[in-house]
């Protein structure tokens, strides 16, 4: 029995970890290209969830149908946030970057409560409702679909960075802003692109999460710490690093919480992070 239960928790952890990874991928792209840690990244996730919710509440469109639209909307929002605010602090010291994104976080939560009331919302009837059960294991269908969606999106982003010209330009800018500029790459466009993709990833994650996770103005706070840990654990700027870190953390959190004590599952994840970063200061796959 316990073997099966263990397998159940490992797989559940995997599903959760993949969604974490998608949120972290967005965060690490922004960091990779611009060395900015976006404290407001959770709020992109929140807006993605609200977009999916309103699509469902107003026009009865399932979050998975509106997912591409949500992704585009968040892409635009991310680029806009870059142009309006972040563009002015690209060369400011890390401290005021933290200060700015922290301000954006509070502003976004205030606006969300002002526009959409603080009540908890949820998408109660989604086409992916129900359960997946096989070999004595059981998983919520929304979670499985969310994990699938997360892997697909992360894969798409990875493919984009690896094999498209624009993706290569982005990677070049991440490697060295000045050198990339010499090659005629417009840094401003790249930064906007980075923030667009970053927010887009969070938007997709939001759409996927909205199928089973409650939606409220503060929801970003529940995920941002995990995203930070993954980015640092995977190595700042490394998409694959964030992906593997997501899986590792997801499994450690769920299995550790089950075997030891759920009250300390966050402590477990953080201790794991500190151990890895202490042994490899640049994280699993980060640039040395």
């Amino acid at each position, binding site marked *: 029995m316990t073997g099966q239960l263990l397998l159940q928790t490992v797989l559940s952890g995997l599903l959760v970890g993949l969604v974490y990874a998608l949120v972290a991928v967005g965060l690490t792209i922004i960091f990779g290209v611009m060395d900015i*840690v976006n404290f407001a990244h959770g709020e992109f996730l929140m807006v993605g969830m609200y977009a999916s919710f309103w699509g469902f509440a107003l026009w009865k469109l399932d979050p998975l149908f509106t997912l591409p639209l949500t992704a585009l909307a968040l892409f635009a929002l991310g680029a806009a946030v870059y142009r309006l605010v972040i563009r002015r602090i690209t060369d400011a010291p890390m*401290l005021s970057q933290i200060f*700015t994104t922290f301000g954006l976080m509070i502003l976004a*939560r205030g606006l969300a409560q002002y526009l959409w009331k603080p009540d908890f919302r949820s998408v109660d009837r989604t086409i992916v409702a129900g359960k997946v059960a096989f070999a004595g294991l059981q998983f919520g269908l929304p979670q499985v679909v969310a994990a699938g969606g997360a892997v697909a999106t992360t894969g798409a982003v990875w493919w984009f960075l690896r094999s498209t010209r624009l993706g290569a330009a982005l990677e070049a800018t991440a490697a060295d802003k000045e050198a990339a500029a010499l090659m005629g790459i417009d840094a401003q466009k790249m930064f906007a692109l980075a923030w667009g993709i970053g927010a887009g990833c969070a938007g997709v994650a939001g759409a996927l999460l909205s199928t089973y996770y409650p939606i409220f103005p503060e929801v970003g706070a529940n995920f941002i*710490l995990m995203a930070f840990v993954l980015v640092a654990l995977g190595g700042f700027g490394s998409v694959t690093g964030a992906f593997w870190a997501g899986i590792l953390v997801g499994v450690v959190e769920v299995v550790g919480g089950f075997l030891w*004590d759920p009250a300390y599952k966050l*402590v477990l994840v953080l201790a794991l992070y*500190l151990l890895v970063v*202490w042994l490899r200061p640049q994280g699993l796959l980060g640039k040395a």
Partner: protein
Amino acid sequence: MSRRTGLAVGLASLLGAALFPLLVTRPTWQNTAILMLMTAQLGVAWNILGGYAGQVSLGHAAFFGTGAYVSTLLSMRLGVSPWAGMLAGGAVAAALSAVIGWPCFRLKGHYFAMATIAVGEIVQALVNGWEALGGAVGFSLPFTESGLWGFVWGRSKLPYHYIALGLLLLTLSVNWLVTRSHVGYYLRAIKDEPDAARSLGVSLGRYKQIAMMLSSALAAMGGTLYAQKELFIDPGSTLSTSLSIKMALVAILGGVGTLTGPIVGAVVLTAIEEASRIGFGGTGRGTDLIVYGLLIVVIAVYQPSGIMGWVARRWPAPGPAPTGPPAAGLAPEAKPS
């Protein structure tokens, strides 16, 4: 502005702070003033490590909480006077910072900041689950008007105001002494060129550790003052990451690496918080968060080097520019090495 006018402004504000509660008798303003002094003290303490040593810690609430818990436990369980508890809290926090600092100093820039967040969250989670430390319920300190010895007063705000002012002055003087001593020179050298400093015999770990221990001890003393003023402590109010971020925000807003930056930052940030909450909080529409967030963004975007940075530009003092934003490990181009 020249050194003389700088000093004059300093003395004038000191006098103002000292006379404030005598002139303004409305308790709410007195309370806001105390909040400003306490926040300023934490900002200055944070700045010793974050500003001068260039090590951005986002987990400093762990030390603030240590101070609050140590003095509370000593006074409630052993009847030790909170004054002794305050010193003990400072010592325990310094020791804790040595344990935390040593492994973290291997890390640079963002990695160091992320590691301190992790440490802060772990400390909060552990205390939250630890029955002997009050667990999630925390402690309500007995409301005995035991005056100076017991460090608790009834309705009057004056004692708390002057203790907060005294603690701020102590923190400032420690900060000032550090900058005047070889430690201060070494810290600035480490921030500019860590390898060059090492080649001159400066052990990076040791001096960052000295800055960390001073910074955490002073933050812990701030924690004791908080416990004695609010008479209630729990992990959420004394160990949370949002408190750590606030300590950093205050220094950033005011101007990191400057002596009085965090004080100016504390006054402005607390004013924004109180005004936005009192002004709009009651509506329940989240407008106070909007105002608060908007003001932070505007200030951060237009004053990246903080208010004191703006002051220094506005009235340039003769001689070298103030230390300004730390370079080593923090300037954008410094990839985590």
